[in-house]
């Protein structure tokens, strides 16, 4: 485990030394200003609308950080050839994959904490409500969803040499799932065969990232999600993350890194 943590530590150090986190803070500032303006409208619908936009911004920013950071990990190691002195040490490729995953996941976790902290402070100070439990649930599920995304991107980065290709493809897949994932079954029922069958199969075999989205619960001040549902969603994320990491390890362990 120490080796995995050591690799993760280097990922995080690289991230903030490459100044990626400064982008994050600029985005957070924008978010804060947007949320701060909520009270000027004195209209509940607009307040909700702006909160919705802020949360969307959090989702997009977190996804960008997760995907872009993860997509370059393995290709950058190969390009700079830093992978060789590392693998010449008693560390397995599985540990490298796990360390890269952990580093990226922790980094996005830090980003999420900062985002939600600012969001909670600003909306709380304006509306005088502090739904901390709901924020924590929303943040946790988003972080769990990002674990699946990071593992998926890591898998993609084993096969696509260019980080830009991995980022673009991953972004399209994730946005596609988030956008139409929940409607896919309905869409499938409206199609003729064999498309109906194909779409139904896709619906059942894809990771349902949209199940982790609690934005509407936050915007409409709904009651907390049951802890059982939260635990099941977490378990679902663990299974998908494990599956993608396993495939990433399988691909990486067979990869000839010298070519």
């Amino acid at each position, binding site marked *: 485990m120490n080796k995995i943590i050591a690799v993760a530590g280097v990922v995080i150090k690289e991230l903030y030394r*490459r100044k990626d986190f400064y982008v994050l803070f600029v985005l957070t500032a924008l978010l804060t200003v947007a949320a701060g303006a909520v009270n000027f409208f004195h209209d509940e619908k607009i307040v909700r609308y702006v909160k919705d936009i802020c949360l969307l911004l959090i989702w997009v920013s977190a996804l960008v950080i997760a995907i872009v950071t993860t997509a370059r990990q393995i290709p950058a190691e190969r390009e700079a050839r830093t992978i060789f002195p590392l693998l*010449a040490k008693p560390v397995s490729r599985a540990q490298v994959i796990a360390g890269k995953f952990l580093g990226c996941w922790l980094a996005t976790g830090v980003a999420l904490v900062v985002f939600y902290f600012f969001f909670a402070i600003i909306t709380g100070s304006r509306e005088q409500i502090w739904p901390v439990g709901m924020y924590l649930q929303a943040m946790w599920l988003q972080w769990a969803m990002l674990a699946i995304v990071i593992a998926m991107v890591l898998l993609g980065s084993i096969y696509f040499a260019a980080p830009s290709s991995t980022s673009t493809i991953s972004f399209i897949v994730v946005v596609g799932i988030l956008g139409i994932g929940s409607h896919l079954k309905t869409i499938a029922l409206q199609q003729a065969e064999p498309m109906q069958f194909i779409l139904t199969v896709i619906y059942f075999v894809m990771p349902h990232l949209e199940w982790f989205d609690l934005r509407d619960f936050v915007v409409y001040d709904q009651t907390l999600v049951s802890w059982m549902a939260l635990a099941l969603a977490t378990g679902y994320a663990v299974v998908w993350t494990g599956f993608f990491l396993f495939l990433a390890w399988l691909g990486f362990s067979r990869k000839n890194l010298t070519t």
Partner: protein
Amino acid sequence: MSVILKTDKLRVEFTSREFRQATKTALVSLDLEVNAGEVFGFLGPNGAGKTTTMNVLLGFLPPTSGAAYLFGIDVRQPIARQRIGYLPEMTYYYKFLTADELLRFYAKIFGLSRADTDKRIPELLKLVELEHAARRPIKSYSKGMQQRVGLAQALINNPDLLVLDEPTSGLDPLGRMKVREIIERLKNEGKTVFFSSHELGEVETVCDRVAIIHQGELKAVGSVEDISAGHANLEQAFLKIVGVQSQPLP
């Protein structure tokens, strides 16, 4: 004398994606043994198979057939690399880290305790004369300094076997002298050094035994004296073994 490094009928083939899946044989049934405590030079012209052999030994590349062992452990197992240090030809390190951070990172990978790490790092930085730059990012170092960081990281675990890939390539005379000094020192401490080099004069000075590889095949192995016997020096012997005659310039 115990065998530290061994290859057993090692064969490596590369299948090219171009040229209709043509197969190129990089290593042909390589049998090599390096004993404990010796400085072993691994020589060959460009494309002979030296780097491929090193890649297999370090677990970067699986052999097509045959096997390689470090300390009797199959190189495909990460634990085989617990007692080795590796210095690559170029400076392939995380350049956003400082020398101190890089050494701490590798110390963690080797499972060194914090106390051992705190003791070991200043010793190594002193050895490679980088104490003054320990907290500066590696990207701000000169090439020679980066190579010395490489040497320090290769020694972080106090290895019993040091694998050096062209250790003096691109170094100035002072840097070369430093590398030679360190090899001599390790030899005196009873460590084993396995290194590839094109600098035959240097090999002649520091090596106990050498192996010459050409077109993936082992052509000669023995002490420097045995291989050089009947020739003016090791370079002449090397040229004869790989089938090249030195000719005067027109």
